[in-house]
């Protein structure tokens, strides 16, 4: 009898911004910039009226049901860059490897993590890439499906905090040693060109909810058979600039606005802005200042792709290059009614299928004339 071979599909986002190595509980690293004092740039941008979009947005009220159209622009967008590192451990080929994630207490975003309860699945993936290629392609959203050789999964059932190679399954079906051992053979999978990752995730959807990544590589000279995941297994270095952007002016207390990104050519990550990649639009309000939000940037985005805010409205964007802001709703189903002069308002556009979870577009909103 045989079972299905190892399932070789890694779906959707890998919650890319991961990296490993470094010291335990090191968390993400924020590169400090020499920017204007918090608030300064935002204030000047506000005074300057943004990129020209605010002129239309703040023009005299329109009649009837017509909506104002506000265009996103590069000048209003934040900027984000990141690098990943997940240094491998070296293990003996053709061995019943053991995997241990019991030491995890924080994920790669630095957010608290309880094991085993928060980890639902642990995926073992084999990439036809060198360590450097994998890190770079993951960071740059350039991984292809064929980069992934195989994937196998352990379901923790909220109990397991460790497993061996023979505990892994393929599409839910058990794997015999003879079926999985060939994939840890150094002759078949040259360590120079192949990399393994152990991915601990919340949820059972492959490739989503990633909390930590630990890489490992085969080394015929090694006798080590243990792969231990720690808080430092994945290391993310990033730079974010929320303060140089020109704020976007909108009429206060109005949501009759079409927010349009059809004129965007590059996203905040410096890549091509593929307009059909946007599938989520969010407006959020924070009590924190823009400078505080910049400092706490990763805390705004959770591992599962959710957004953290004091008040939040969002809408899926099934198609098109614009979203009606009055279609955004909060968790209670109440529609967005417009911004005011309390707190910090933000609009963000996301590509949720992309490997890097950072929003493609993020701008602060300010009432006209403020």
């Amino acid at each position, binding site marked *: 009898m045989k079972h299905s071979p190892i399932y*070789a599909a890694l779906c959707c986002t890998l919650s890319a911004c991961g990296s490993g190595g470094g010291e335990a509980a090191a968390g993400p690293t924020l590169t400090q910039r020499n920017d204007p004092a918090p608030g300064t740039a935002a204030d000047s941008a506000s005074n300057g009226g943004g990129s020209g979009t605010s002129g239309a947005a703040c023009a005299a009220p329109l009649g009837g049901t017509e909506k104002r159209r506000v265009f996103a622009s590069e000048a209003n967008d934040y900027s984000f860059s990141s690098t990943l590192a997940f240094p491998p451990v070296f293990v003996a080929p053709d061995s019943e490897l053991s995997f241990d994630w019991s030491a995890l207490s924080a994920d790669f975003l630095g957010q608290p993590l309880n094991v085993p309860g928060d980890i639902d699945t642990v995926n073992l993936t084999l990439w036809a890439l060198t360590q450097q290629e994998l890190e770079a392609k993951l960071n740059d959203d350039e*991984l292809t499906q064929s*980069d992934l050789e195989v994937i196998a999964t352990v379901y923790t059932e909220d109990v397991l905090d460790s497993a061996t190679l023979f505990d892994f399954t393929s599409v839910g079906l058990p794997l015999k040693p003879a079926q999985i051992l060939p994939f840890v053979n150094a002759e078949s999978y040259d360590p120079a060109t192949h990399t393994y990752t152990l991915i601990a995730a919340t949820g059972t959807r492959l490739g989503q909810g990633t909390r930590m990544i630990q890489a490992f590589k085969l080394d015929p000279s090694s006798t080590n058979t243990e792969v231990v995941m720690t808080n430092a297994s994945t290391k993310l270095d990033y730079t974010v600039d929320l303060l140089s952007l020109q704020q976007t002016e909108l009429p206060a207390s109005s949501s009759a606005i079409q927010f349009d990104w059809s004129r965007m050519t590059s996203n905040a990550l410096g890549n091509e802005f593929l307009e*059909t990649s946007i599938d989520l639009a969010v407006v959020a309000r924070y009590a924190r200042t823009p400078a505080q939000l910049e400092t706490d940037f990763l805390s705004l985005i959770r591992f599962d*792709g959710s957004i953290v805010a004091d008040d939040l409205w969002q809408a899926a*964007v099934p198609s098109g290059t614009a979203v009606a802001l009055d279609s955004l709703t909060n968790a209670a189903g109440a529609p967005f009614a417009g911004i005011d002069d309390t707190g910090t308002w933000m609009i963000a556009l996301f590509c949720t299928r992309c490997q890097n979870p950072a929003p493609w577009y993020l701008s602060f909103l300010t009432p006209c004339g403020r």
Partner: protein
Amino acid sequence: MIAGHWSFSGSSALLGATLIAVAGCGSGDSTASAGASELLPMTGASETAAATAAPAPNGQTPDVSEASPPVVLAPGTTPEGAAPGAMPAAQDPPQCRFSLSNSRVSPVIPTVGIVEWSSDLAGIDSAAIEFGLDDTYGLKAPVDLGAPNHRTLLLGMKASREYHFRIVAGNGTSECRSEDFSLRTGPLANNLPDIEVTTNDAAALAGGYLVTGQYQGGPAYILDADGDFVWWYNLDEVTRARLSYDGKSMWIGNGNVPQRQAIVHLVSMDGLDDQDLSASFQDYNHDLAVLPDGTVLFIAYADGCDDIRERSPSGSVRTIINSGDVVGARMCHCNAIHYSTPDDTVVFSDLDSDTYSKVTRSGDVVWVLGGDSSRFTGNGATWDNQHGFQMLGLDRLLIFNNGAAGDRAGSLAIEILLNLNSMTATRGFQYAAQPAIANQVMGDVQRLDNGNTLVAYSTQGVVHEVDANGRLLQQLEWGLGGAIGYVEKRKSLYGPPPS
């Protein structure tokens, strides 16, 4: 603090016009139409709020402000392709008037056009709508003359493009052609998979449409010959998307591996009618196949070994045979099923036993190919792991051979010739990608009309079209997350599946 999660809901685009178009009676040549078409607003149309008048053929915005009297265009209809002199002398050329009562794109799938029309041409016995990116058209939608208002779907259109179309109707002796109309398709759904198309020899490609779906995350979709999305519908974990035998709907099934919840939907090609038939496909997994009478064959989980079942158009389901009874096993993993038209039989794949088996619909075993229970001998009766396949007749088939776990030689497409007298199986055409692609789960093959072969490395997110010599003509490569299900390429999105 509030943590908002991604959630997907919202309205679909509604584009297009609801119009009455009074168009010309062609005389075998649309350019002969003498008058301008009139496009009039349709009173009481439900889509008027979002309707936009389709531009007139000359690119001008049609006058939709006032109902003008119909314009009857120059008579002199001739049979298509015939010179005017070929007209029967005694026949009065009919005067044809077309009324376009609806012309829009589907609000669910905005690359699908919906056209409703009528004509005063007496005795219409055939009709079609020609359509394309310019007024040379190139695509043709057959018209079901029994459909209300001759409702016709325009399938295979790209997103966000202006399409031209005209109605062609005949009554056995004459043929009328309407004025040229236009219709703008809506935008692509956001976040469809990224697919990179690399073409080495465009002239050698078979062309046509690729029907498939995302094994992880959905949707089901259709790509045109350029690799552009022309149809999509969201369901999760699609391993099989297959047009119904009449071509009017899409069957979409999930993998359901391991057994959790069978999902099988029948979705009209305009996306407006989605029938969730999962309850009558209890235990469904992997694959289904369609028969001319509307019956659907499918694989269903059973204790140890899967059942091969069929569902009638009325919804009744019966088990044809249990796969374990065919190969003498207690554990099976059936993963692909096809209908063999010439002999009204069913062929299915069982991964665990490395076999393809043919059974009659009454449950008699015709043959078993591969594995320990093979009734054939020869080099075509041995392989390790397989998924999708295609019957190329009674005595040959094309299979996707995954290969053994960890086998770096990669997966193969293998044509197997069956000698049904000597019960020998011989390998014929064989294709191995260079460099090798080892695809462990799913995988499919199809011989195309021009002799090319389609090879889908499904969960590696790669599809190759190769010629009879194994020359790679085109590659489609999906981005990460692009694990696809089974594939089927069709020359047309209308009518029965490829033979």
